[in-house]
Structure formats: C-alpha cells, structure tokens
C-alpha cells in the first residue's frame, strides 16, 4: 500500500495529476462537449459522481471477488460492465426521484459509459495499490479535476466563438487542443507541491 494520506491524494488528483491534462483520459467527450460552459458543468458534475462511486465499487469487486477467485485478467470486462450497469441504474433512479436533476444531467449520463477517464481511474487505483479510502479520494479528486478542466476550456471556447476570428482550419478541435496544451502547461506549475507516482 502506498503511504500517502487520502486528503493529499485528493488534491494531487485534482491539480498535479489531473486525469485529463496529464493522463489524456476522457478527451473525446471533452472535445465535443466543451463548446459551452453550461453543458461542460453538467457533464463534469455527472462525471464526479459516477467516478467516485465506481472507484469504490470496482475496488471492492476487485479485492473481494476477482482476486480471491484468481480472475484478475477479467477485470476489464467486469469493470466496464459495472460502470455501464451503474450508469444505467443512476439514470433510472434520477429520472424517477429527481426529475429536475434529470433534466440537467440526463442527456450526459449515457455518454459517461464510454468516458475513458472513468475506466482509467479504476485501472489506476488497482495498479497503484490504493486502499479503499485512497481509492474514493482518488476517484472524487480525478472527477473534480476533470470537471475543472472541461469547465475552464468550455468558458474559453465560449468567448472565442463570440469574439475571435480564427485562421482557416483552426476552428473546433485544433484550437481546443492548443488551449488544452497551454492549460496543461499551467497545471504543470502545481507539480512541485505534491508528488504521487
């Protein structure tokens, strides 16, 4: 087990080891949804919730079911099925009991199953031997870090669409990638504060 307390890990996952800006995970929804701030925040919130819960569930399943049965090679299948099932469950629950929330997050939930950041977080916590509390802290931190990145880029893109005149071919994904690169540079400034693998 890694000796690092969960609080530190939480902040490390948000700033120094941002899952999007240093590990490139969750780029596809990031590039397509970050056109405006509102949608970015909605998707971000859904990711935070799902990522925290699935990190916990996948941890428990891995150490209490897969490891004793010696089925670790099947973790990819098991994890992706758990994530898909969880997202489906959340969608149904939210639709039934919290209709307001459903109108805000509803369209984003199905997108989350194929968000590589969710599966990535679960795989990272196995590889890095986190404990249960560390896993939950890592899941929540990564989710918030992802939300932070997509919200920031969403806000910048909104401004760009309104004011800037871009050269041919640079609109859309190209400029978003360049902005993300600059943002990743800025986030590297945090990296002196905390070190995790």
């Amino acid at each position, binding site marked *: 087990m890694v000796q690092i307390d969960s609080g530190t890990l939480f902040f490390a996952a948000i700033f120094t080891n941002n899952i999007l*800006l*240093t*590990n*490139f*995970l*969750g*780029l*596809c929804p990031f*590039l397509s949804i970050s056109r405006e701030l509102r949608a970015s925040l909605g998707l971000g919130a859904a990711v935070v919730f799902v990522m925290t819960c699935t990190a916990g569930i996948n941890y428990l399943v891995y150490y209490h079911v897969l490891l004793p049965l010696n089925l670790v*090679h*099947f*973790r*990819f*299948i098991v994890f*992706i*099925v758990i994530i*898909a099932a969880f997202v489906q469950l959340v969608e149904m629950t939210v639709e039934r009991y919290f209709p307001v929330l459903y109108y805000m997050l509803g369209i984003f939930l199905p997108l989350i199953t*194929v*968000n*590589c*950041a*969710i*599966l*990535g977080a679960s*795989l*990272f916590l196995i*590889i890095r031997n986190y404990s249960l509390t560390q896993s939950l802290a890592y899941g929540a931190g990564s989710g918030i870090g992802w939300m932070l990145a997509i919200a920031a880029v969403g806000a910048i893109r909104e401004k760009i669409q309104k004011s800037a005149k871009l*050269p*041919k*071919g*640079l609109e*859309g*994904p*190209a*400029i*978003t*990638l*360049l902005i*993300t*690169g*600059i943002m*990743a*540079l800025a986030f*590297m400034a945090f990296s002196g504060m905390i070190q995790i693998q």
Partner: protein
Amino acid sequence: MPKPLSNREIFVQGLWNDNPVLRQILGICSTLAVTNLMVNTLVMNAGLIFTVAMSSLTVSVLRNYTPMRIRMMAQTLIIASYVIIVDISIKAYLPEISEALGPYVGLIITNCIVMGRCEAFARNNPPWPSFLDGIAVGFGYALVLASIALVREPLGFGTLLGFRIMPQGFTPWTIMIMAPGAFFTLGVFAWFVRAFFPQTAEEKR
C-alpha cells in the same frame, strides 16, 4: 441502398477520408499518452489494429443474431474480450513495455474508434468488408499516432526507437515528453490537415 464499396474504396476511406483522428479527433485518449516513445506507440498501435479488425469481424458475423436493444452491450463485451487477449500477449512477450504502457492497454476498450466502427460499419456489412474496414481505420489511426511520436521522441529525448539521432549538443525539449507536448503536436497536425485538405462542408466554409 447504396452500392457496396469495393475493397480499395474501403481502404482509402478508412485511411484518409474518414481518418478518425484527424477528421473527427476521436479515440485519442488511450493512445496519445504513450506517443512520447516510438516503441510504445508501435506496440499500442498493433494492439489497436488487432482489436478493431477482430471486433469488427466478430460483430459483423453476429450481426443477424444480436438483438437491437442489447447490441451496445454485446459490442462492448466482444471488444473487451479482444483487449484481454492483447493485454495478456503483451504481458507475456513484452513485459517491460507492458509495464510502461500501464493501464492504457485496457483503455482500448473505451476507445471510441473501435465502438464507432462496429456501430457505423460492421453492424450493417458482411464480415470480409468489415474486417478490411477495421484494418484500414486501424492503420489510419496508427499512422497519425506514429507521426506524432516521430515528432515527440526526437525532440523530447533526442532519440528514435532508442537510437540517438539528434546531434550531441542538442538540448532535449522536456516539454515534448510531457502532456502539453502531445496536445500541441496533435493540435498543429489537426490544424494543418483541416486547412490544406478540407473535406466536409463545415470545414470548407
């Protein structure tokens, strides 16, 4: 119903016209992270080509037996099975590279391209064209990532495939090994391709 495409057309479509990375910027998540070393990129690309081709083939073979409602789940499971094969093979034959790739091999499952090809092509086409389409798209993807690695490794480490190619006095650009380097390189690539070879109506505007 549109005329079925010839094998050559399928290949050109997959390699260039429909190139998933440059045209749609899809599915870069799992592989962009390993583009700072050419060796890792090539191994990852081989894994991806295998997965796309084989899962397209399987989805296509099973296309008449898969109920519409659960097809996404079935596709995910098929893809995941092939990814497990890739993961175990890399672990067995290339343990060092497997260590370096970390969780990214597993993340091929959530690579939008694999699922995208199953959903867009293999679901409605016979097995052989689907297999070809998978290989073509896989190669189109591999080509782009290899070119990104071709920029990043020499600039970041001064080497290519482990051999020193830059002159002795060259100071490596540390930024190219880290995340921002990948974003900048891919951003410039996408810009270049869209500016000089516009394709869709939106890009031609």
